[in-house]
């Protein structure tokens, strides 16, 4: 756990840990794609390949007691917030051992004990509750911050505007992290965003707004530390515009007919946050291979764990409707 008094930069050791975590998320999601295509996973899936540095940079900056709310693209956030890969994979297989005990699935991952208040399949749907959680911390005098993840597509929906408006009006300790990947499903920003600079949206509410390179985990971590300090000190919420890239389709199996294949190839070469961090750390092939082997083994084990998991009884569907 990072300490408050740190300046926001990460030691080499911390960065290596970030690298390991990002690679774990990458290998996990690649495995999820593979198992989905093999027909083992029910429902449908959204992976966040290319966006790992945002999840890891933000979650690493959080303190004990801080909470997050995530989106339909939630695997990375969930792992970064501390849910063991076994429990996440078991959820994707619909097992009792899953982090939502088989009631949620890929788009409804929860881990309340670890501060994950849930992923949301309604774009922008979780933002008002983040403002409300932050209001609770303020009213109770608790030193926590509530953090929302959402994409650029969500900044067009009413809940985004109402939530930021209320959060700023009441100066609640919240951080709004926009994973600005330039796509709302298949619709490019030029077709859905009337503003050229995303942070103008937060400035419209007089909210502190900071732009950060979402492919650079160190930068994300540093910006998040500052944002958390600002919010925790009672100065009100912060909006983080993390520019990032979705290096895959909207959902697993998306043929991406709307997207230039050459552009995707180029982005994979130039904007992969894992490649960037590997270069920054100057990892040798051997060092990389060691980390890769370790996380790959964890991912493989999670599949075995999930497959050996317990199916809920059909009639368990009637449980948990009411407290």
């Amino acid at each position, binding site marked *: 756990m990072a300490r408050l008094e740190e300046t926001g930069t990460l030691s080499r050791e911390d960065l290596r840990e970030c690298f390991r975590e990002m690679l774990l998320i990458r290998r996990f999601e690649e495995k999820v794609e593979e198992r989905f295509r093999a027909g083992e996973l029910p429902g449908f899936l959204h992976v966040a390949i290319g966006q790992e540095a945002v999840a890891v940079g933000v979650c690493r900056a959080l303190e004990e007691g801080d909470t997050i709310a995530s989106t339909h693209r939630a695997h990375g956030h969930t792992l970064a917030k501390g849910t063991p890969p076994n429990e996440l994979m078991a959820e994707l297989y619909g097992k009792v051992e899953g982090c939502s005990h088989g009631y949620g699935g890929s788009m409804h991952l*929860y881990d309340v004990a670890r501060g994950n208040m*849930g992923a949301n399949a309604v774009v922008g*749907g979780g933002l008002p509750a983040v403002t*409300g959680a932050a209001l*609770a911390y303020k009213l109770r005098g608790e030193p926590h911050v509530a953090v929302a993840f959402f994409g650029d597509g969500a900044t067009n929906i009413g*809940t985004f505007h109402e939530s930021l408006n209320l959060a700023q009006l009441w100066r609640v300790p919240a951080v709004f992290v926009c994973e600005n990947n330039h796509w709302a499903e298949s619709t490019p920003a030029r077709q859905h965003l009337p503003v050229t600079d995303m942070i103008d949206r937060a400035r419209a509410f007089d909210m502190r707004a900071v732009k950060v390179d979402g492919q650079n985990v160190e930068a994300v971590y540093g910006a998040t530390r500052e944002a958390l300090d600002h919010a925790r000190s009672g100065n009100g919420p912060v909006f983080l515009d993390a520019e990032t890239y979705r290096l895959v389709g909207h959902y697993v199996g998306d043929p991406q007919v709307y997207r230039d294949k050459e552009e995707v190839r180029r982005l994979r070469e130039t904007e992969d946050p894992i490649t960037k961090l590997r270069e920054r750390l100057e990892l040798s092939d051997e060092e990389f291979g060691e980390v890769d082997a370790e996380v790959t083994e964890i991912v493989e084990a999670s599949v075995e764990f999930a497959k050996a998991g317990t199916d809920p009884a059909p009639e368990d569907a009637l449980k948990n*409707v009411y407290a």
Partner: protein
Amino acid sequence: MPELTYREAVRDALATAMRRDEDVFVMGEDIAEMGGSMGVTQGMLAEFGPERVRNTPISEMALVGAGIGAAMQGMRPVVEVMYEDFLTLSTEQLVNQAAKHRYMSGGQLKVPLTIRTQGGAGWSPGAQHAQQLEAWFVHIPGLKVVFPATPTDVRGLLFASIYDDNPVVFFEHRMLYGVKEEVPDELEPIELGKARIHREGEDVTVVAIGPLVHEALKAAEQAEGEGISVEVLDPRTLQPLDEEALIASVKKTNRCVVAHEAITRMGFGAEVAAVVQHGAFDWLDAPIERVGARFTPLPFAPVMEEWCVPHAEDVLAAIRKTLERDGD
């Protein structure tokens, strides 16, 4: 026993909960200095201050959603949505979020949130300020739905709703705020899911909610003059529903009328009729009659409005209809 108006009874339930529990707070549009558009929260700002009696922007999505977030952190917020017509703006938050967080998390979360709202015809507010939408929310697993008709009920049920660990959509009625009733000295919580029999009878059961409870009681008086003994039963909570009480009453009277101010088609009465016919089929001597509003938006002109929504004479006509078959 003190006599309270329905409005005072709501306020008493809120204030009692807030005095004993720091985790209870209220928020809504115009509820602080103004005391709410219906005057329910008048005086509460002075007692509890602006942190706990929170005026909000006109922002129903964020307002209800912020209540959800605070509730998931263990507080017990009470959100006032000024008119139930405006619940439509926050329906996504109620239906997809409040109702489902506990379920989707596999039981990890609770959402102890109360949404107070009000509506109802009788004062010509037109089509967007008087709808009765309670049936919508009964269709959503995870929500509880309460619609009290009297001061005693509104006080006890609101208090119980605040302390329920589930999201409760709590309907009040515009035309009931001035209704008076003697209430217990000490606030007594009323368990959700328990019907109240207002009047016992032998010939027909009228299952009524909200203002139609009072209309049904008037109709019952008139029917008595015609030699018809009417039982008036108010379920008070629509979800959970006291099916046992409904069925027991109809097994006794053998006839049933359901009455609400909401539109008849797909109204709550349809569910009551289904429950009763299934639970008391062999006891029924007549088809179940439904009383409700006509299938139209509420018109403005008073003569049209009055014609569209049901009154005591409509309930009486339905009562008579269930008895007509005796000569068959």
